[in-house]
């Protein structure tokens, strides 16, 4: 069974009395362990698609199954739970809590999952060690480089052992060298069996993936496997 099954997903917005069709019937399925890049120019609907895959948004029509859960008709609390357990987000701007240490940032998803304090610390420390930041746990984001911050974000995304890592322009705010570092980390994560979806408009980033889905005008324009 596929990890992600999107079936004729449509998403419409009402904007100033006009209906905007962001997605016009997208059907994709992604298997466990895949490394997928979603590409498209701005306005193509790729952000909307990412929000729907990430359970931040629900489709206007169509059905979405994530790891066997039918997401389309879930309420806000259930969606929050799914985001917490099944999805790890990595953002372009890192989105770490600036006042909290790396450790506290990584602990945050565990807090919302209700993991108790000792166990939480242990898991978070292990997650930070996995991304090579064992010696930076007590640093705050403003005391770290961009690459380190993004690695904290990756540790935070993975700490709850989600079935899916969803990265939105993960290298957009990094220089090319640190960008490569993050992509190498992704590669390693993929090799360990994690499912990754990277949303990007950079061909170079997309080339690291094993499958590229291109979105144009709310539809899947192409879906190819990279060899």
């Amino acid at each position: 069974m596929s990890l992600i099954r999107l079936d004729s997903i449509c998403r419409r917005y009402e904007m100033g009395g006009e209906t905007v069709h962001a997605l016009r019937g997208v059907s994709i399925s992604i298997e466990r362990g895949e490394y997928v890049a979603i590409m498209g120019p701005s306005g193509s609907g790729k952000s909307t698609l990412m929000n729907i895959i990430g359970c931040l948004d629900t489709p206007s029509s169509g059905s979405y199954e994530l790891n066997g859960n039918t997401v389309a008709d879930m309420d806000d609390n259930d969606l929050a739970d799914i985001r917490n357990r099944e999805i790890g987000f990595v953002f372009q701007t890192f989105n770490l809590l600036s006042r909290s240490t790396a450790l506290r940032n990584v602990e945050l998803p565990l807090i919302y999952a209700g993991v108790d304090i000792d166990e939480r610390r242990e898991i978070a420390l292990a997650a930070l060690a996995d991304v090579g930041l064992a010696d930076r746990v007590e640093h705050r984001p403003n005391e770290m480089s961009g690459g380190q911050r993004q690695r904290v974000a990756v540790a935070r995304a993975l700490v709850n052992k989600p079935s899916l890592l969803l990265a939105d322009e993960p290298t957009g705010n990094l220089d090319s060298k640190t960008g490569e570092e993050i992509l190498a980390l992704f590669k390693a994560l993929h090799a360990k069996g994690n499912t990754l979806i990277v949303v990007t408009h950079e061909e170079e980033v997309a080339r690291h993936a094993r499958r590229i889905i291109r979105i144009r005008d709310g539809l899947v324009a192409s879906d190819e496997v990279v060899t």
Partner: protein
Amino acid sequence: MKRLLAELRENIRMALSALAANKLRSALTLLGVMVGVFSIILVMTAVRAMKNNIEREMGALGSRTFAVTRFPVVNFEGPHGSMRYYRRKELNIQQGQQFQKIADFAPVVGLHSPFGSFTVSSRFAETPPNVPVEGATPGVFQTNNWTMVEGRPLLTADVESARDVCVISIELAKTLFPLGSPVGQRVKIEAINYTITGVLERVGSSEAKALAVIPITTGLNRFGRRRDIGILVQAADVATLGDTMEQARGVLRTIRKVAPGEPDDFEMLTSDSLIKQFNDVTFAVRIGLAVVSSISLLAAGVGIMNIMLVSVTERTREIGVRRAIGAKKRSIMSQFIIEAVVLCEIGGLAGVILGFAGANAVAVYLLKVPPAFPADWAIFGVAICSVVGVIFGSYPAYKAANLDPIESLRYD
């Protein structure tokens, strides 16, 4: 349950770090709450200290004793009221003695009158002019629970013959006769020598105070006869106190020729009625305080709401991140409500501490009464802070919880 507690702990921790990030802003915001709670605690602690003091002082009088005086202890009818009291006949020694003769229903009757504070000197030492000299009859020793440590109390014969004798309190005895027994020795008050017959100790009165007691008749001869005296009456027990008071009232009305239907032209007080009078007087103060502090807490609450709304807007991005990684609306809501409550509680605790400190400084240095720490008002103050926090934190928290996660993540 355990999970809720853990979440609460996390929320408090997050709230503290959020408040610490904006120290000046948090401090200014909680100032309002602090002032509100401070004013409650200040006044309530001062009132409690005074009340405790009255209870302590009256405790010596005992629950089966009442006092008859010309004037009420406290007057809250303004100048008009006090004129009414000043037109009353004197309550003089003759009336007192007449009452004592007639009132055979009362086991103990004492007549007393303060003559002022003077310097008391012995061969060995001299006090500052602050020793109260009290005129008394033997009954006063019983009604006031004075016990003899040494020697004898005043006798009826001392009073009848207006002898120059006196009984001093143990505190005064230690000052004037540091080495030997004072009984039989002489002390000088206002150029007259008095022979000491005994040393008394005041049971139930917490404060060590110097006191010299002379026969009331002697005092009236020395210090002038035109003065009011007080009558102290002890009933057989608490149950008959009311009856005894009624009988005493009848006797006094007869002695003072009060026409039937006229109100009493004297006051009868028990320790209970004194405390009640005190409560009546302070009632207006407490009501006024409640109104003023409600207004100040309301204003403080609006300030808190304002700053929380600013905080929610500033932290839109943070809220978006939290929602994305799995925070439910409820979690965001409780996070911000708890932040408001913590802010209020810090202000409230500061208010309680400052209120205790301020009120007890006034109590000890200005009113000269022992300090009080009314825990009930402290708890009330802290509780009302939580209520203010919850009420005024709810709307900003609701706003935060209902932000669209996608929009919030894009916000900058």
